[in-house]
């Protein structure tokens, strides 16, 4: 039995998870759970999911050894290249799965939240591919800082709704998408972008993302002559690329490390709480109001974290650390110059941890696999601004 197996009947990983949503949504959660379990055991469904990810999504994505970067750090570093998947990030794995489920449930419309815009673009892409209507909720602040992705979603035929409630970022986009889902649940599937939300989402999204870790395990064993990497590292906001990556390695000897942004570190600085349908670690004030997260990467600006990460932290199977904005900007430049790979700001957190700890926490001579969850094009403008460059 894997440490990352199915959750309990109530949707719990240890004490985390569950189903904390309004009664109106409960039948939809039950239906989704039943349909997902059935589909995931149906060779025809799994075959179509894999076929689309291969023919259309560009899978399997390669594992790249970073030779110059490794030489500089004194450890061997490999990247799992989700930046090379269609739409430029790992998000495509999840949305293809959920869009196929939407069709299987007889629903015709997808709604989604997005922070950086990557999940919104991926959902709009899957909707276009399968002929579904798509509406994406995005905080007004993020609409302004990710204008290019807003335009991409519109090109793909999606409507983008600018959310002006609360802090006008990802957390409020989720609130608004949930409110809309309550009103339209008969025809609409809420395509949640990370391993969060009410059961079965954290489990289902991890299963749709485990293709990242399953591929990477085989690929890294090939490269390392049958061995697994000493370290497996991924960035964590909600935690979908980390959950998918960890799922492949959790039953091996690899040390699993999740890297949170310093300003949105739910596991490192939060305590258990309940928001967006789940019980998990959460940044909150002294009476339980949810705090806003702050980091340079919109995709990690989330005050909570997927419940399975809280569980993996609680049993000590994965370690969660933080990286600050300066370390991240530095990592992005180092990787770009030494390897010709411009990472998105999100996985630059994982790179930053490796740079900081090589020869310290990570002993010289170790091997480390880092999930490159997305490419950096979307961040070029904001990075230029932060570096004082005009674009």
């Amino acid at each position: 039995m894997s440490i990352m197996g199915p959750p309990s009947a109530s949707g719990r990983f240890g004490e985390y998870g569950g189903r904390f949503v309004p009664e109106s949504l409960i039948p939809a959660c039950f239906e989704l759970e039943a349909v997902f379990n059935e589909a995931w055991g149906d060779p025809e469904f799994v075959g179509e999911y894999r076929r689309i990810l291969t023919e259309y999504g560009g899978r399997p994505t390669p594992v790249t050894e970073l030779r110059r970067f490794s030489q500089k750090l004194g450890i061997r570093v490999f990247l799992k290249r989700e930046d090379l998947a269609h739409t430029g990030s790992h998000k495509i794995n999840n949305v293809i799965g959920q869009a196929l489920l939407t069709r299987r449930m007889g629903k015709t419309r997808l709604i989604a939240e997005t922070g950086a815009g990557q999940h919104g673009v991926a959902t709009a892409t899957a909707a276009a591919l399968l002929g579904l209507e798509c509406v994406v909720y995005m905080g007004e602040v993020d609409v302004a800082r990710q204008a290019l992705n807003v335009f991409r979603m519109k090109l793909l035929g999606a409507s983008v709704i600018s959310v002006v409630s609360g802090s006008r970022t990802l957390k409020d986009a989720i609130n608004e998408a949930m409110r809309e889902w309550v009103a339209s649940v008969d025809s609409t599937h809420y395509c949640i972008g990370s391993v969060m939300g009410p059961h079965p989402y954290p489990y289902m999204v991890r299963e749709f993302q485990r293709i990242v870790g399953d591929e990477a395990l085989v690929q890294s064993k090939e490269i390392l002559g049958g061995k697994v990497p000493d370290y497996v590292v991924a960035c964590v906001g909600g935690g979908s690329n980390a959950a998918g990556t960890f799922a492949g390695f959790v039953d091996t000897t690899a040390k699993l490390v999740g890297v949170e942004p310093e300003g949105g570190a739910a596991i490192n600085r939060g305590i258990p709480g309940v928001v967006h349908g789940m019980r998990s670690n959460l940044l909150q004030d002294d009476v339980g109001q949810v705090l806003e997260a702050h980091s340079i990467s919109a995709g990690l600006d989330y005050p909570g974290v997927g419940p399975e990460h809280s569980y993996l932290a609680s049993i000590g199977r994965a370690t969660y650390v933080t990286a600050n904005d300066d370390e991240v900007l530095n990592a992005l430049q180092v990787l770009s110059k030494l390897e010709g790979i411009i990472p998105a700001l999100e996985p630059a957190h994982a790179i930053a941890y490796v740079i900081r700890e090589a020869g310290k926490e990570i002993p010289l001579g170790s091997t480390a696999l880092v999930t490159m969850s997305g490419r950096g094009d979307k961040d070029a403008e904001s990075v230029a601004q932060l570096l004082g460059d005009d674009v």
Partner: protein
Amino acid sequence: MSRESLGRLELALTDKKVSGRKLLVPYVCGGFGDWVETIYAIIEAGADAVEVGIPFSDPIMDGPTIQEAAQKALEAGATPSQILSEVRRANFSVPIAVMTYYNIIHHAGHERFAKELEQCGVAGAIIPDLQLDEATDWIRVSGENGIENVLLAAPSTPPERLKRLADNSRGFVYGVGRMGVTGERASLADSASEIARRLKECTEKPVLVGVGVSDAGQAALVSRVSDGVIVGSALVRRLLQGGGPQAAHDFVGELRRGLDDG
């Protein structure tokens, strides 16, 4: 259930129901504006109980009107303890049920929060994101402390679950009038009378319908089937527009007359 085992909220509502009166439970957002005076005013205008909101940062069951009031209350520094201590001081003459989201309770701890409610004279609790399957421990702990936890039933709730939900609700059963979040609507949804009918078939407890009940006509219409209504956004909008306790008194008076005249 015998009369002796009923809680304060259910007893008060049942007595009025038995006397032939349709029940009116308005919602007021704690910490927003002149909320304590507003509650006195709406009790005088005929409220049978009052739902007092404890604002939460991420209210996923609320539409724009109640979101705005909650955000203003939070910006003004409202906290759960401060709202509850004002409820205690005010000593209202009808039962008070607090409406909040589960993280506020989770953060305080079930035992501590239930005791605080009890000490402040609160009779009931309504927590829209704590559905039946997750509510077992809170129902027990709140019950042991004399707090009646009201469960919400939705148009989408299947029959077997509806019965279990009604059996486990205390105080009254909250029928959600439409698939959606709180807010005013031009007309009453068919689902409002339908959820009332389904609930009345499976419980003797008072059945109140809220979410999308916006004026006296709609309140009277759904109360032909239900035992009464909960009205939130329509009242809160009047307060957001600057109407003070007097405007609240006038509006709740209208609702009262609508219900009394059928």
